[in-house]
């Protein structure tokens, strides 16, 4: 008996130690400021414990992009793409999928492997497109944008299937006498899920930011073909503010000069009435400037436990539901200025809204599964209580709680996904100074000359950790 206890303790300690060697979600998100960033990136890159996880490569890819290492970021995105591709191409009856399903149905939500929500799977291509673009490979960037659009089309049918599945779960649970239609009042996300801005979203995966960027990148890659128009129309239908992202230079003041005297028209020859003054438009060398600001970090998923007592409080069971820690380090004001323009680009990417909308859509299904898990745990606690007394029941409840907590701690999402995306494409004069203001921080640089355009990527990780890269074309 003592030995058994010893083994259980050792296993628990080992599990805790294993989880302690890698950067957990809170540690990762709290060490992104400028003085810590390089060390955090290095620790994450050298961590081999989570390399089979989809979210690990996505987090690493964002950090590498924000560090200006676009090739490394492309490689990391490729790894996450391979993990997702392997998952999507598994056999119709996959033993791993069955194991994961059984684990998440009866034991813990954390037994599920996280393969990303629709918006994350789309945005991984959007961010990777920026990597290719910053390397000057706009054709490669357009490939990623097409992948993004294809994923969004795929999610159209996938989400409908998920909503249908959730409705079926609800019907099944209600048939068994469980009420899963109302959100538990103790649940921290209860108010957020009922927020009108979340309820009114068209869906949880289509974002106007990606579609707008797609139209811009495609037009740069294939200037003679108007391939970006469809994407732009999609973006506009999702958010009318997209029109504010495109700004042209104001027309220059027309200068009028007196025309030199014309020789008199000879008789018999046809002459046209010439104006006495001529309008001259001053020649300016314009260029297109596209500024992309990726700011902050998206909500981080967590498993929230709502505990409730059983059998006169002698032991307890818990409902575990996915929830989110709020987004962090986001920017509140973005202003772009040149000699002739002052712009406030629209916030087209709102990751937090998409995350909450996803949770809202899947909530009934999640609650139904949570009720099944809680029932299974309550049955075990009851058995322990009947056989070993109240103390045995309490110990069983505690053991199940600790076990699922360890599993839950490994359930993570793309925690470093940008929470906001601002986009603006405008005309500027070659060689003039471009100033970007982010909250109270101001960054300036001189636009190049003799180029058709420039794409500027602003990675705003924290208020003291901002990086600006640009590529000319």
């Amino acid at each position, binding site marked *: 008996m003592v*030995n058994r206890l*010893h*083994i259980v303790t050792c296993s628990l300690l080992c599990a805790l130690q294993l989880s302690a060697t890698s950067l957990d979600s809170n540690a990762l998100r709290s060490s992104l400021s400028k003085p810590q960033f390089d060390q955090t990136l290095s620790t994450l890159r050298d961590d081999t414990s989570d390399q*089979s996880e989809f979210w690990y490569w996505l987090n690493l890819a964002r950090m590498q992009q924000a560090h200006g290492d676009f090739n490394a970021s492309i490689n990391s995105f490729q790894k996450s793409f391979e993990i997702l591709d*392997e998952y999507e*191409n*598994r*056999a*119709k*009856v*996959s*033993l*791993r999928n069955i194991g994961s399903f059984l684990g998440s149905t009866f034991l813990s939500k954390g037994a599920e492997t996280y393969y990303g929500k629709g918006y994350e799977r789309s945005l991984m291509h959007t961010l990777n497109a920026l990597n290719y673009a910053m390397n000057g490979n706009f*054709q*490669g960037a*357009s*490939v990623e944008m*097409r*992948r993004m659009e*294809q994923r969004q089309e*795929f999610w159209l049918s996938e989400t409908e299937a998920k909503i249908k599945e959730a409705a079926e779960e609800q019907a099944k649970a209600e048939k068994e006498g469980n009420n899963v239609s109302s959100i538990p009042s103790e649940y921290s996300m209860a108010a957020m899920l009922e927020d009108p801005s979340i309820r009114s979203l068209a869906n949880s995966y289509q974002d106007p930011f990606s579609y707008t960027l797609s139209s811009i990148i495609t037009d740069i890659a*294939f200037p003679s073909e108007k*391939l970006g128009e469809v994407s732009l129309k999609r973006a506009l239908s999702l958010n009318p503010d997209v029109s504010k992202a495109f700004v042209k230079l104001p027309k220059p003041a027309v200068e009028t000069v007196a025309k030199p005297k014309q020789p008199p028209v000879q008789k018999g020859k046809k002459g046209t009435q010439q104006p006495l003054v001529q309008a001259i438009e001053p020649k300016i060398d314009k260029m297109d400037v596209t500024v992309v600001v990726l700011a902050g970090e998206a909500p981080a998923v967590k498993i929230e436990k709502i505990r409730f007592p059983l059998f006169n409080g002698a032991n307890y069971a818990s409902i575990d539901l996915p929830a989110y820690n709020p987004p962090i380090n986001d920017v509140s004001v973005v202003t772009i200025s040149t000699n002739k323009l002052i712009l406030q680009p629209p916030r087209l990417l709102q990751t937090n809204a998409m995350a909450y909308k996803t949770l809202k859509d899947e909530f009934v299904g999640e609650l139904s599964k949570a009720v099944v898990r809680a029932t299974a745990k309550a049955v075990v606690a009851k058995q322990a209580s009947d056989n070993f007394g109240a103390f045995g029941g309490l110990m069983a409840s505690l053991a199940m709680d600790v076990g699922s907590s360890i599993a839950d701690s490994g359930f993570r999402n793309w925690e470093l996904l940008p929470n906001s995306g601002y986009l603006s494409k405008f005309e500027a004069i070659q060689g003039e100074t471009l100033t970007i203001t982010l909250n109270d921080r101001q960054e300036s640089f001189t636009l190049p000359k003799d180029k058709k355009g420039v794409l500027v990527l602003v990675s705003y990780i924290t208020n003291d950790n901002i990086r600006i890269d640009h590529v000319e074309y």
Partner: protein
Amino acid sequence: MTTLTKLSLSTTLILSSFLMSGCATGGAGMVGASSNVKYGDAKAAETVTADFGSSDLQSTAETLTQSLLETRYISKAQQPPKVRLRTVNNLTYEHIDTKAITDKIRIKLLKSGQVRFLADTANLNQVSAERDLTTTATTKTKMKAMTDSDYIITGNVRSIKKANDDVKDVYYNVSLELVDPQSGEILWADEKEIRKVTSKSSVGW
């Protein structure tokens, strides 16, 4: 620690090692004593994935080169025309190295002896810089000879991808055009179509 406990721990460790090795995904095998590296037939059909692969590259180059050489603008020309190969646009869902396609076509056409090639736009600057180093005076006539082509070859690679729960279907279309740069007239065009279908296995890990 009792022998029984040690045995159970050892068994757990061995089982864990087996499980972990079973979980490891495939990939390039380690090169060592038990290396799996071997030479394969470069022209054998490659069916590892549904992505655009080496077999597709070879069959595309073969088909389109043959078709191009049969056109009267090449086969009945008084002297081998000067041709410039432009970039083939990648309009697919994959990162295809389209330069590999144009390189393959260029080599096949050059080997036929029926055309002469000018350096492509990307290499033209390097060639020009080399000339500046080796010649004292680069005349406009010489420069014109470097840049004037009789024909331009351009093209696109497109794909259509469809998938459901069971099947993934990818259709590729590689098209090339021979264009007269003076008139803009398309003198020849042909395409190579490829279709690849993959289906999920019924039961698996």
